[in-house]
């Protein structure tokens, strides 16, 4: 596959899916398949797949809040507000249910507002444990998943067998592995896999049937791998935050020649960086999913007794990817991210990793401030690069 063909595949398959989830929903329904909305965070999508239904990620949308303003005050997380807006304006009408975790302070009231606003769309509630690694946490999560399974069976009108869940786990693990491979390959070919294309490939996994997404992505990854290595002269950054999929925002990265070489973003790598574990002897598949959730971490949404884990993870990402700095895309009114930020900044500053914070909201129209900040950040990285080169040459390295 040539570079042109790579771009064409991304445009036709991934960008199309990432930008038109409503059309995919229509296609599922036309094919007689039920679809279930997957709300943030860490919903057990495998169970929806195992029920023979199509999971569709719900991460809000860009636009204005109208009807949702009758439910949420203005000082509220965009994902909660925009997802409710989507429910109110009919975007979610074709869904047979939504799967709704309640792990943060925004999603707790979201669940209550959703069931009030759209009682006609069944809401399958999930309350995951924060103390998830101890046996009592795994047991509780397994119980929650058993209830979710029953409620999904009622929606699907069919039983979800253990074998189907095992199969789903395998399908999803394969998808996760291929997405991780894509993230690595994208980092070494930033002018082909621009920030926007990278985002589309990853975002589309929330809407496309997983086997198809994985199959096309595998072909794409093989093709990227076969390309000659790039001599990228722009900046390389790790992006951290809840969402970084706005085309307007990503174009600011692109315009400033900032390649995204790794991410710590909730709807990107955080959702696929670790697999569901291998089964222990005769282990029930729901328990595998519970242990998989227990294995998640380095995330503002998840309590971790190891309080420096996320900072270590972020520094590790910078090191492994060869990034020069970190850009925090701070979702407005997101307490968990805002409360992690000072510590993360301090940890990065302490080891000399440049970092910048830009504010983001799905209602944002004007990215002028982000543009100014990223221009300055990009120039700073370039200056550092030049200084490092000159220091290296003066010491004969």
């Amino acid at each position, binding site marked *: 596959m040539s570079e042109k063909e790579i771009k064409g595949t991304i445009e036709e398959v991934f960008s199309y899916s990432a930008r038109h989830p409503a059309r995919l929903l229509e296609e599922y329904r036309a094919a007689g398949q039920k679809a279930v909305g997957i709300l943030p965070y860490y919903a057990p999508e495998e169970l929806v797949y195992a029920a023979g239904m199509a999971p569709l990620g719900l991460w809000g949308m860009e636009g204005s809040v109208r009807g949702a303003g009758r439910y949420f*005050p203005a000082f509220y997380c965009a994902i909660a507000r925009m997802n409710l807006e989507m429910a109110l304006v009919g975007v979610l009408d074709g869904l047979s249910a939504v799967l709704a975790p309640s792990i943060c302070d925004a999603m707790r009231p979201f669940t209550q507002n959703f069931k009030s606003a759209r009682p006609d769309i069944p809401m399958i509630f999930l309350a995951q444990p924060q103390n998830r690694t*101890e046996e009592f946490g795994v047991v509780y999560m397994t119980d929650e998943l058993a209830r979710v399974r029953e409620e999904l069976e009622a929606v699907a009108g069919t039983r979800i067998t253990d074998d189907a869940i095992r199969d789903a786990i395998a399908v999803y693990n394969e998808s996760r592995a291929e997405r991780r491979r894509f993230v690595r390959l994208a980092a070494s070919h930033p002018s082909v896999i621009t920030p926007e294309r990278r985002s589309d490939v990853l975002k589309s996994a929330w809407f496309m049937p997983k086997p198809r997404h994985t199959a096309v992505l595998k072909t794409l990854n093989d093709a990227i791998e076969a390309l000659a290595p790039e001599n990228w002269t722009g900046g390389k950054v790790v992006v951290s935050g809840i969402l970084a999929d706005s085309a307007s925002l990503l174009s600011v990265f692109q315009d400033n020649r900032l390649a995204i070489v790794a991410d710590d973003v909730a709807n990107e790598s955080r959702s696929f960086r670790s697999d569901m574990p291998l089964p222990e002897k005769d282990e029930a598949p729901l328990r595998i999913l519970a242990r998989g959730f227990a294995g998640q971490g380095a995330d503002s949404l998840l309590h971790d007794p190891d309080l420096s884990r996320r900072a270590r993870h972020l520094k590790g990402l910078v090191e492994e990817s060869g990034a020069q700095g970190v850009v925090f895309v701070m979702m407005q009114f997101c307490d968990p991210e805002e409360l992690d930020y000072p*510590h993360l900044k301090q940890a990065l500053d302490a080891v000399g990793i440049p970092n910048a914070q830009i504010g983001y909201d799905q209602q944002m129209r004007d990215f002028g401030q982000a543009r100014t900040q990223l221009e300055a950040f990009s120039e700073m990285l370039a200056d550092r690069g030049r200084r490092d080169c000159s220091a290296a040459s003066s010491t004969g390295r």
Partner: protein
Amino acid sequence: MGFSGDSDSNAKAQADAGAMVGANTSAIDGANDDVTTKPAKVVLREIVDAVYEQAWDAKKRGEPVGWSSSKFPAEIAEALGLAVVYPENQAAAVAAKHGGRRLCEYAEALGYSNDICAYARISLAVSDGAPAEERPVPPPDFLLCCNNICNCMTKWYENIARRHDIPLIMIDVPYNNTVDIPASRVAYVSAQFEAAIKKLETLFGRVWDPARFAEVCANANRTASAWLRACGYCAMKPSPLSGFDLFNHMADVVTARCKPETSRALEQLADEYEQAVKEGVSTWRRDETWRIMFEGIPCWPELQALLRPLKEHGANTVAVVYAPAFGFQYGDMDGMIRAYCRAPNSVCIEAGTEWRAALCRENSVDGILVHYNRSCKPWSGYMLEMERRWRKELGIPVVGFDGDQADPRNFAEEQYRTRVEGLVELMRANSVTRENGAPL
């Protein structure tokens, strides 16, 4: 209707509120100020002061001092004899004494966004060493965090634990989407209680004594019973108290609910309300033309501003959700766990709506004033829907205003005043409609 003849002042209201959460007892006035029979409010204030004094004493003796979230099971630390202070209570005290902005800005200079809960910002500033003379607390040696109120608490305490490199005991109470708490959730929380006890025993060489725990639980139940009895007097017409008094006394229920002196002081408070009813007097020293529910945490820095238009319009606060929220009683460990699963922000909208609706019905409320509290997203996040349900179920007007529990920059007195006036107009119109027998 209503009471008259007593003098009152906005300054005194602020002083009372400030004192409950932080100040000394010098602001007390009135005929009951007798050293042998102190009024309950004085005793209650001294109990809160003693909690903090005991923590300082423990620190001086080299014993560990914990910082605890307000709805962490206080029974555990009390049974183990560990000194504990309460950052939420401290933040309220600081805010009521007008230190909120100073400490919020201190936290913002550390990099914390001003979107974050102001209690958290104040506490994080204190944790970093910022002076808080309004209610000084010893630095923490351990942390007791329960997220039944919010998940912001989890992140807030993680930051303190990291800053001080101290143990964080975290009890996770998942949110409830149904009125009943599922058995699996009770088992999960129960296992965490056990783990927390074991960890504290190991950390501080304490031994768990079931008999002492039973005694502490009995005290907590007695406190809850007395608290509910005192709150129940809001149902009297006219009420012998203002709901703002309950905001003040809640400090005792938060910081000292397991102590027998708290039970006795709240019983005394209830007795005083009983006596006030007989004598026809009230701590609300204005007309009681209207009876309202104040929904949410008050704006501690702005108590005078909150009360001013209410007094002008004779609107007494006779319902606050803290009464049922903190007055929980239980018969066994299972019941205790279920009680801690029912914090204001951890119950579903049906339970939350009914708590308040029941209060409004029992206390003959004419209208509801809702505080859209910028600090508290989980609380404010479903209030608009609750407003609609209350209007429909209760047939009374509901009006909201924007504010903040501790950051004065998020409150505009003019908006508040206009909203109170609007509520009064609506209550008046509703009253006329009812008198005319028209359907609600």
